[in-house]
């Protein structure tokens, strides 16, 4: 077992792209866990007078004193330049950055009440690392909070899918016969549902007073419920061949119970497939959430998710004027790529044929 792990590492380390992908994912997930701390503002901290504020430039060099200075930004004012609204820096007013400053309250790790932010500036000035959205909310902040939903949706979803897939696939494959037929026909039944419409119909039945968080959970569950039959079918196929292996027959001969055989001897052999396919399937969930929010049936304002943020970019006229509203799209792109590279690396490293 130990040598297998070593071998896996040996191959995985060689794959630089997979390592980069993995690294990006670690950074993304860490920043999503500590979103409240890293973000300078609360998720719905509006400043309607700073609508579509551009990216704040952080300066390290003081022109007047001609010396390197503590990082600062200039205050800005709205001007109309060539009919476009722009926020121009006002060089008279310097606003120094503050680190570990007090601001909007949030719950660190979901339960520790806290109001310390990694960085920020004195109100009424605002620092917009990645620009502001229509309501003057910090896009950087909303991306971080949005990642909590967009990134976890894949993990939650895939764990439901895999669990259901393993149970149904394992049972159907191991017992075969009538059980197999019934379960697999049931899977086909579920697969033939048009998932998107199912979700939209469900959305309409949920009363509006239900908080958006439950809506989010419901969305994940529905997405997972639509997706698991595919997984179950592949696992069933693998179990079908595994159950004819000598060690399974040996276990049977020893009088082991069926459940034990499935759990101890058959399913563990499907793990390498499951890990790889799960990693590669997570981007599907992230994109699924994007589509749902885009169609306005997913996460609702004032909560944040990448899909919801990308909704604003439906308007092509904005791409030119306020290109920073495309940040969530960029992050989705990066995340999906990272997952694919990482999954590919896993597959290569876990591939038994490589050991030859």
């Amino acid at each position, binding site marked *: 077992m130990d040598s297998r792990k070593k071998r896996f590492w040996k191959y995985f380390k060689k794959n630089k792209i997979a390592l980069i992908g993995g690294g990006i994912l670690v950074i993304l997930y860490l920043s999503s866990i500590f979103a409240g701390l890293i973000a300078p503002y609360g998720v*719905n901290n*509006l400043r*309607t*007078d700073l*609508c*579509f504020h551009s990216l704040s430039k952080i300066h390290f060099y003081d022109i007047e004193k001609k010396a390197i200075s503590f990082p600062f930004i200039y205050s800005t004012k709205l001007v109309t330049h*060539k*009919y*476009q*609204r722009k926020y121009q820096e006002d060089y008279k007013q310097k606003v120094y950055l503050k680190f570990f400053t007090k601001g909007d309250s949030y719950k660190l790790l979901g339960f520790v009440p806290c109001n310390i932010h990694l960085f920020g500036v004195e109100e009424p000035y605002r620092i917009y690392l990645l620009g502001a959205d*229509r*309501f*003057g909310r910090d896009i950087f902040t909303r991306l971080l909070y949005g990642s909590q939903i967009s990134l976890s949706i894949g993990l939650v979803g895939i764990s439901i899918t895999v669990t259901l897939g393993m149970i149904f696939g394992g049972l159907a494959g191991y017992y075969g016969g009538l059980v197999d037929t019934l379960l697999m026909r049931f899977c086909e039944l579920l697969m033939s549902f048009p998932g998107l419409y199912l979700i939209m119909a469900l959305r*309409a039945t949920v009363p*509006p*007073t239900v908080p958006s968080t439950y809506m989010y959970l419901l969305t994940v569950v529905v997405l997972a419920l639509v997706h698991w039959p595919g997984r179950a079918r592949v696992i069933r196929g693998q179990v079908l061949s595994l159950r004819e292996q000598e060690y399974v027959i040996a276990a049977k001969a020893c009088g082991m119970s069926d459940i034990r055989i499935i759990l101890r001897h058959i399913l563990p052999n499907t793990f390498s497939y499951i890990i790889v396919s799960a990693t590669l399937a997570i981007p599907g969930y992230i994109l699924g959430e994007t589509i749902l929010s885009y169609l*306005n049936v997913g996460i*609702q*304002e*004032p909560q944040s998710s990448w899909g919801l943020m990308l*909704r604003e970019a*439906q*308007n*092509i*006229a*904005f791409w*030119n*004027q306020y290109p920073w509203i495309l940040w969530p799209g960029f992050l989705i792109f990066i995340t999906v790529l990272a997952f694919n590279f990482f999954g590919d690396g896993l597959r290569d490293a876990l591939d038994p044929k490589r050991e030859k």
Partner: protein
Amino acid sequence: MKKYAIVIIISIFLLSCDQKSKVKLTQDIPLPHDPATSNCTVGKYGGTLVIASAGEPKTFNPIMCNESSSSDVISRMCEGLTTINNKTQKVTNQGLAKSWKVSKDGKCWTFNLRKGIYWSDGHPFTADDVIFTFKVIYDPKIHPATVDSLIVNGKKFKVEKIDNYTVKITTPTIYAPFLRVISLAIIPKHKFEKSYQEGNFESAYSVNTKPENMAWIGSFKLEKFLPAQKTVLVRNPYYFKIDKKRNRLPYLDRIVFVAVPDFNAVSMNFLAGETDLIDSIRSEDYAPIKAAEKKGNYTIYKINYGLGSSFLWFNLRTDKNPKTSKYYVNPIKSKWFTNVEFRQALSHAIDQKSIIDTIFLGMGYQRWGIDSPAAKIWYNPDIKKYPFSLKKSEQLLTKAGFIKKDNILYDSKGNRVEFTLFTNSENDVRIKIANLIKHDYQKLGVTMHINPVDFNSLVSKINDTFDYEACLLGLGGGDIDPVSHMNVLKSSGFTHLWWPKQKKPATLWEAEIDELMDKQLTTLEFKKRREIYNKVQEIIMNNCPMLYLPGRTLYLAAKNKIGNIKPTVLEHRLLWNQEELYFRDQ
């Protein structure tokens, strides 16, 4: 990517349009005996006007159409007895009647129709068409939306034919806006009579009817309708209007409405120079379109105030549903909603400026009252206004017995103040506005849930099931005359949104409005009528049944090569004088 693809497809298809045949100028059709004369600049013939439209006609039946994507096209091909000049906002005799007389008691109107004019299929137009149109409109089985303004005190007009070219219309009482409401489209008897008698009038002139089987009297007639592609109108060779040099109008050969998927495509098509005008520029599209104004060789026109309005209202019903014997609105909440101080407080808590700054990107105006400042002769500037002030709003709530504890508002009985607002999910702007209002209300301690539903189920909530607490919607502006607000203001009205179709006015102020609205209808003298209507506007704003939201500044654009462009605030802002438009020599 998809949108680019669509634009490419549209451009390919527009290119193919260039190969169309030149429309023959049928000068051999003699000019009518009584033509209408336009005093516009004399233009030149030819050319196709291309317009992108995000919707497409659902019907071509002028009586049955009730949404703008149909009526925008149909009204290009119709005429009424009178017409309203969009520029002056006044009634003119450029329609089917060349003149009219009113009796001394102000009730009996005699219209002299133009002689020798024809429908687009060559069939002569006579008084029979007018009589038939009114017969259809007043038919209780058909009941079109327009009929409401043609009934006074529950009585219909009496429409009689004197001879082939004279029609007498008698109103039950003096009816001030008569000449305006009579501008409705007249339909050809010879085309509609058969289906009317067979009882399927609603399906006549549908989108499946062959254009050859339709007859029109307006400056254009339908040439072809290709679903999800385009609607092509071609000049009506029989049109009865001429210019100063006795050339028969219209100048243009064709008007093409290209169907595009959404408003993004509308503005992109215009920017790409593929369409000739754009009726309404969204705030977000203003900057790119304005920036390319010189290069694109077009002009942007600004209209400070639109006629339409959007607002938030509470369901003010206090009665029970007779079928389920349950209250339509939870009595606890109903008590808040029917409290005028509660409504005023919530109106004060709406920050109109921040809505303008963010939703309209600064291009909007703060709106108070049922009438837009664009309706110059009717707008009452002295109505009560509710500027943003959380302090005032809190004072009003305290006065009304509400208590704020830990940032949550409770009523005097200790119920937490929260309600659900419905709006239509297709309209992103409304959802965004609702979210801003929600944010403002949170500061008051009021929790507002937002539930966007599709438009049709929203309409059925408002009109049939009444199972909602609050709603955010808008009303488009038709005409400026107070009569266009009749069905909203009168408690028996179909669009008396907060409690429609009441048998008896629920409150004293609603009863007062009913009385005043009936009174203004029968007051011919403008000054007096205006006084009465000013009072109506005041009562509305004092009682605040509708919490008004800011309006958008209107921007329109048209290519410089089009002559006789006269943008107006009334509907069909650029196309209302379509017969006069022409392409200048380049």
